């Protein structure tokens, strides 16, 4: 997985590209989140349109990231979920946990 980050209006937009599956991509996601928190960034938006594969481990990483960020008083939201990722969050009822946006401007305004 490739991770790239940019700051817009006080929100750190972290773009994920590739697979977040067991043994691949899980640690990069964790590192990206920790890096952002270390730099005192509180508002994180995961841009996920480039995620090509996600399994239960990857879902677990997303949940773990959410908890980490929330526990430090920050916010983690999701942007541009591929339809199959939405499905995976839906069946596990995690879709009610995450704030999900289809539109970047709206997502930025929400923080």
């Amino acid at each position, binding site marked *: 997985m490739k991770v790239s980050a940019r700051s817009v209006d006080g929100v750190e937009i972290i773009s994920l590209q590739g697979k977040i599956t*067991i043994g691949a991509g899980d640690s990069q996601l964790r590192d990206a989140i920790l890096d952002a928190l270390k730099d005192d960034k509180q508002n994180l938006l995961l841009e996920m349109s480039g995620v090509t594969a996600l*399994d239960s481990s990857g879902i677990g990483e997303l*949940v773990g990231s959410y908890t980490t960020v929330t526990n430090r008083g920050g916010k983690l939201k999701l942007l541009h979920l591929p339809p199959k990722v939405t499905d*995976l969050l839906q069946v*596990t009822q995690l879709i009610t946990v995450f704030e999900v946006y289809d539109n970047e401007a709206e997502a930025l305004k929400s923080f």
Partner: protein
Amino acid sequence: MRADTERVEITISSRFENIELVQVIAEHMCENAGLDDDGSHWIGMAVREGVANAIKHGNKLDVAKKVYACFELSGGKLDIRIADEGPGFDPAQVSDPLSPMNIMKTSGRGIFYMRTFMDHVDYQFKPNGTELIMIKDLADRTGTKTNG
């Protein structure tokens, strides 16, 4: 040309990077059987979870231990077996990932996904290892999209 009866077996060693080998076999077989992309994808996903568990929980990442998978397509049903060399577990002890107590856990959704995407999920525990059995009736999904 569609295959009505087919059997494919694959054996890998216990590395996460081999999961995809088994997954693509599952997906290709589903496509050969006339399933649409989405249908094939979700079955591939169930296989991915089953193989990941066999590698991680069953064989505990010991690369000398093998994961064996067998796909049998017959009478419109896909029968998938995934075997590892591990001691097994008690499925009754597996907690429900939807319960409020578990929803924020970072693991415990693999078997749940398998059950979601397959019609039947079961385990057999033998002295030499664990076998996961998953069955999917392809008939009620074959060509759903556009009948093709």
